[in-house]
């Protein structure tokens, strides 16, 4: 059982400000049914369109998602839009007396919805963390394809919450919690944001004989690629290598997976990084 605080329990069992505001000035929506949680936030402003006079929410999600939404609406009522934008996810978590680390993404979702609502109201670009997959108006590059999360958003959460491990990033944002394919990228973002030196990395060799190249491709697939696929019950098999074309077939959970195209790209990216720049990965039946 989760170790929820009494405050979380109270805001889950008797959430404040549930519902819609039909003539809301601002509405922000994040998450989806597929992701397992979603929040729709409604804001009503005063006549100067400056201060939040009412806030309501609808949430699909677990107890901490519901409690975080309730806390968010309580915190922002009476604040100006600029003051509201300063509300951090930590503030939401603190209001609730803390959240289990695995549930911190619930507080982040609250803060996201608020940012989206205000950005939409002000007509600027919508912050790049609408979980709605591949939204065109989104800022930044998608890192986590499973949950549709961008680098810009991840960098902000890493920096705001001083996160040091990919596991923490998953707890706070869900990124990396699906297929796990983006965990290396998350580590790179952590290194970039937190100023850590990237770990000792393999270097791409200058020149390769054909034999050495084939060995290296096999080695990278075994050591760098397949363990990541195994983590989600997937796998791949190396079918053939012809020059710089590497033919692979997906196995188990990867076979028929809707994101196998992304996975093939990921494999290609890895091989280009460690073996040679001109590698092309082809998915074949086999």
């Amino acid at each position, binding site marked *: 059982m*989760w170790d929820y605080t009494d405050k979380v329990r109270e805001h*889950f*069992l008797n*959430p404040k400000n*549930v519902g*819609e505001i039909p003539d809301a000035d601002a509405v922000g*929506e994040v998450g989806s*049914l*597929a992701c*397992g*949680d*979603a*929040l*729709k936030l409604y804001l009503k402003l005063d006549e100067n369109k400056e201060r939040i006079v009412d806030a309501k929410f*609808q*949430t*699909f*999600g*677990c*107890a*901490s*998602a*519901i409690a975080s939404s309730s806390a968010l609406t309580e915190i922002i009522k009476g604040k100006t839009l600029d003051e509201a934008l300063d509300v951090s996810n930590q503030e939401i978590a603190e209001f609730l007396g803390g959240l289990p680390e*695995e*549930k911190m993404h619930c507080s982040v979702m609250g803060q996201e919805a608020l940012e989206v609502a205000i950005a939409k109201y002000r007509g600027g670009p919508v912050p790049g963390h609408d979980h709605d997959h591949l939204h065109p108006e989104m800022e930044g590059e998608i890192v986590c394809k499973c*949950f549709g999360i961008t680098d810009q958003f991840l960098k902000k959460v890493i920096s705001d919450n001083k996160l040091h491990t990919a596991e923490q990033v*998953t707890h706070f944002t*869900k990124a990396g*919690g*699906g297929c796990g394919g983006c965990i290396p990228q998350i580590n790179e973002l952590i290194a970039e944001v937190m100023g850590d030196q990237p770990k000792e990395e393999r270097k791409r060799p200058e020149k390769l004989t054909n034999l050495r190249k084939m060995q290296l491709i096999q080695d990278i697939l075994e050591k760098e690629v397949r*363990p990541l696929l*195994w983590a989600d*019950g997937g*796998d791949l098999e190396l079918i053939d290598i012809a020059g710089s074309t590497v033919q692979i077939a997906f196995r*188990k*959970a990867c076979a028929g997976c809707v994101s196998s195209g992304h996975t093939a790209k990921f494999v290609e990216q890895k091989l280009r990084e460690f073996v040679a720049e001109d590698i092309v990965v082809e998915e074949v039946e086999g």
Partner: protein
Amino acid sequence: MKEIYFDNNATTKVDEAVFEEIRPYFCELYGNPSSMHFFGGQVQRKIDEARNRTAALLGALPEEIIFTACGTESDNAAIRSALEIFPEKRHIITTRVEHPAVLTLCRNLSKRGYRVTELTVDGDGNLDLDELRAVVDDDTAIVSIMHANNETGVIFPIEKIGAIVKEKGALFHTDAVQAVGKVPMNMASSTVDMLALSGHKLHAPKGIGAMYLRKGVPFRPFMVGGHQERNRRAGTENTVGIIALGKSCELAGHYLAEENSRVKALRDRLEAEILRLIPNVRVNGGGAERLPNTTSVAFEFVEGEAILLLLSEKGICASSGSACTSGSLEPSHVLRAMGVPFTCAHGSIRFSLSRFSTDEEVDAIIGELPPIIQRLRELSPFGREFLQK
């Protein structure tokens, strides 16, 4: 608050008769069964009795029973032994819906160079035996396929599977932790080589399990040390656990018919009423043959952890295949393997009954559940859209 315990696939109440059976073996009859003196000998005789009782429930010979610490140990012992017996064979077959006791082990072995095939299931959770036929080969050391699924209760056709496996000379192991005591078994006429069972799923305490090992099937123990269990599982016997398991197996044989009649009728009524009273619900594995005590129901537009906690407020104990209860971010591997639609995979709740479940308890759940689902749907942006339609 009196609990309404409908989470018997997680663990069960120790039967009072089991507790009475083991009571003297803590402070009075505490001898070591290996000792030469009368004081240990009387415990040894009680262990023999427990072995006979356990064997009787399975339709097995007493010497085919090895007591272990839990179902997980039995699974590990069986699979690891098979790989040692056939060092030249490098292929393992299992399913995508196994309990982690088997699945995690197989995935770890695949990282150590074994070829592991995870059979898929259809939308009802059924296996395709043609897929098994196509992948089992001379390189296959062991096929490990569960008897009944812990999350959905779906029962696999163990004897048909075993017949296919035997043709290729591989060993067949089944994790029967959820099936023992609910499905009649007769190892004497079975194709199963090894089987895992767990005491705490059938009203014995936690910390005791057993493994069935067919006579004549070679075995390499991974616990070595003393001579206990005929050198097949070293370590001083968990005497009270073993005696408890024996008693609980005797009782399980006695109550097997009731599990499949009265308990099944309670489950069927619970399921039918949920479907009648709450719209947009599906039964996971509803089209398959299932254990008599289990129902996994998926509620659209709501999330499982929230349902569980609201049920818990009313004293009702159930479990969920939702992501949020486990700390992972995706719904259970079983529901994903079955392709349960994403609109309801996060809202799946498992109710698992036992012979202690009553009509009144079913009534209470039927009374409490609809308003809980209604309340969460009103709270959910998707649920509201649906309710307004």
